[in-house]
């Protein structure tokens, strides 16, 4: 019996394996060695974590190469690289959110930031707020109004066009040549650079209304060029997964095709469509480049999308950074820019989570 056990231990499957606790030992050693090295050159939490991770990976791979052989070592190396890449990819996300939070919270909490516009706020007020250490004047209300209105109009244009196109693709085209052309062009449209969409809207309105036309509506047209393909893609996917039995049951009852689509197909798919539209809104509300060339800059509230320049959150951030209100004291402008950035991130995140909520609320009722 005893000999049998030893025989088994020497079998090819179990020999030359590191004990299970090896990674923990290596990790502990890596952290200690990294701390010791850091103590020599000056302590820094970030560098310490980085060095520990590298030492841990190196120790794991080397110990495996010595005991387990080349193949296992390469496997460990690949694992380290893959996990390391994921952690590296998280760094900018954490860093961006941290930077925006730290810089944005003071501005966002300033009274009047959400409720006032930049109308009448000039370098004089900014200089005064720096020298007297009073709260920063001016706010983001006009930009918020502009963003909401422009996005609303873009949605009003894109949703009917996008939804009808996806209905054509799924319900009417039966996979003909023209539908293949549309699908291809929609894919190509997804790749249009946002600034080119802005230039298109400018060029279009320059021909219709004369050069230099900059209004909120021009911006909405530019944004809908970016939004339509997103709406088409997501609605198309959603309409495709509506079971054919539902359509056939409706036809069998003598219901017309258009009423079947309106009463059966769309209500079944509405949760996916609505969440797709919400995601599309989240995508375009942060677009800056098309607004720069179409809506102009404004410092006062403008609620008319068809006349006059209009501010928006992204362009507000951009102009506050690039051309501070008071060139000698850029800090108040930077504070407003970061606060607006925080507001924009919150808005986009809210829309992203809202999309999931919408999907759940509108989900077709199953069972009783």
């Amino acid at each position, binding site marked *: 019996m005893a000999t049998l056990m030893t025989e088994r231990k020497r079998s090819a499957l179990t020999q030359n394996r590191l004990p299970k606790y090896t990674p923990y030992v290596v990790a502990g050693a890596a952290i200690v060695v990294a701390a010791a090295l850091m103590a020599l050159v000056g302590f820094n939490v970030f560098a310490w974590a980085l060095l520990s991770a590298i030492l841990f990976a190196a120790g794991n791979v080397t110990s495996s190469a010595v005991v387990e052989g080349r193949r296992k070592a390469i496997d460990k190396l*690949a694992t380290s690289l893959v996990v390391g890449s994921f952690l590296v990819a998280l760094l900018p996300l954490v860093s961006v959110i941290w930077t925006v939070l730290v810089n944005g919270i003071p501005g966002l909490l300033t009274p009047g930031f959400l409720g006032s516009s930049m109308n009448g706020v000039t370098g004089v007020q900014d200089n005064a707020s720096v020298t007297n250490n009073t709260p920063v004047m001016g706010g983001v209300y006009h930009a918020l109004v502009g963003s909401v209105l422009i996005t609303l109009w873009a949605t009003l244009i894109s949703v009917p066009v996008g939804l009808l196109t996806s209905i054509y693709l799924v319900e009417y085209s039966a996979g003909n040549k023209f539908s293949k052309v549309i699908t291809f062009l929609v894919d190509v449209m997804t790749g249009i650079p946002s600034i080119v969409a802005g230039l298109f809207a400018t060029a279009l309105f320059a021909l219709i209304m004369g050069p230099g036309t900059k209004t909120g509506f021009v911006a909405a047209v530019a944004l809908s060029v970016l939004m339509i393909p997103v709406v088409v893609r997501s609605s198309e996917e959603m309409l495709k997964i509506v079971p054919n039995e539902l359509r056939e049951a409706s036809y069998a009852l003598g219901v017309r095709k258009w009423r079947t689509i309106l009463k059966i197909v769309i209500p079944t798919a509405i949760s996916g469509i609505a969440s797709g539209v919400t995601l599309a809104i989240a995508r375009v509300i942060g677009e800056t480049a098309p607004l720069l060339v179409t809506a102009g800059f404004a410092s006062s509230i403008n609620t008319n999308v068809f006349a006059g320049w209009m501010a928006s959150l992204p362009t507000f951030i951009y102009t506050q950074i690039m051309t501070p209100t008071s060139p000698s004291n850029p800090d108040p402008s930077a504070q407003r820019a970061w606060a607006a950035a925080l507001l924009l991130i919150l808005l986009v995140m809210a829309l992203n989570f809202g999309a999931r909520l919408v999907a759940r609320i509108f989900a077709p009722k199953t069972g009783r």
Partner: protein
Amino acid sequence: MSNTKLARRAGTGRTGDQVFSGAALGAGVLIVAILFAVAMFLVIQALPTFTAPRSESTGGEGFFAYIFPIVIGTLIAAMIALIIATPIGVAVALFISHYAPRSLAKGMGYVVDLLAAIPSVIYGAWGASFLASSLKGPYQWLAENLGWIPIFAGPASGTGKTILTAGIVLAVMVLPIIASLTREIFLQAPMLHQEAALALGATRWEMIRMAVLPFARGGIISAVMLGLGRALGETLAVALVLSSGPLIASWIRSGNQTIAAEIALNFPEAFGLRMHELIAAGLVLFLITLLVNVVARWIISRHKEFSGAN
């Protein structure tokens, strides 16, 4: 009486059908028309640039002398972004599809997608204020130690606002695109092949190399091309991060410019010929990204029967 009523009802139904299918078809035609119009209006508004005398263009050497350096700048920035984002993006996708614990994978995929949700202007602000200043030191080091390589030729920028910083910011923005597209493809790699490889004693990495990566090659290429399309057209990140200048080889000095940033920085004040010139630059950008996207879609459609990136 009842017959005519029925007939009338049927008639209205038919009208509804015609109206509705007409509207659906019209929307489809509209999309084709929009894309055609984008190209047409850009061409029309760009034409004066090509007929104007050479001396009146920016730089005074004609449009092509003006556009050439910024096309190269655009390509350099996009290339830096892809060099960084491709390996990391593919590895992130592999991590989510094959390495992460099943229960956490979905959440992690969502976290990576959050990277894509952050607006570009915020990346630009982050790159200009945080990333550029924290890269000053490394650039100094590169200039001192690797300065003999043309792309790291010194003296390093004092602000850190260089094409390399812009490329890194672009890499962060392209990463989620590459990661989410390749993840979809990795998840569709045939499970039987993977299990067979593992059953034959392959390690996890060998299994991925033999059963997953060959399957996903076309998808990875097209994901990278779509990422390239995004990197080429990205505007604000570059406009805010890069302190632009003439075309230079060094990545760590101020200089270079991309088409999109050039338009965004100059268009608000442009009028007359300058405006037409910038629209012509936009047309060039449109054609480049169109080419990249068409090639990417073509690769995807060739691999359509066994890939998920469509």
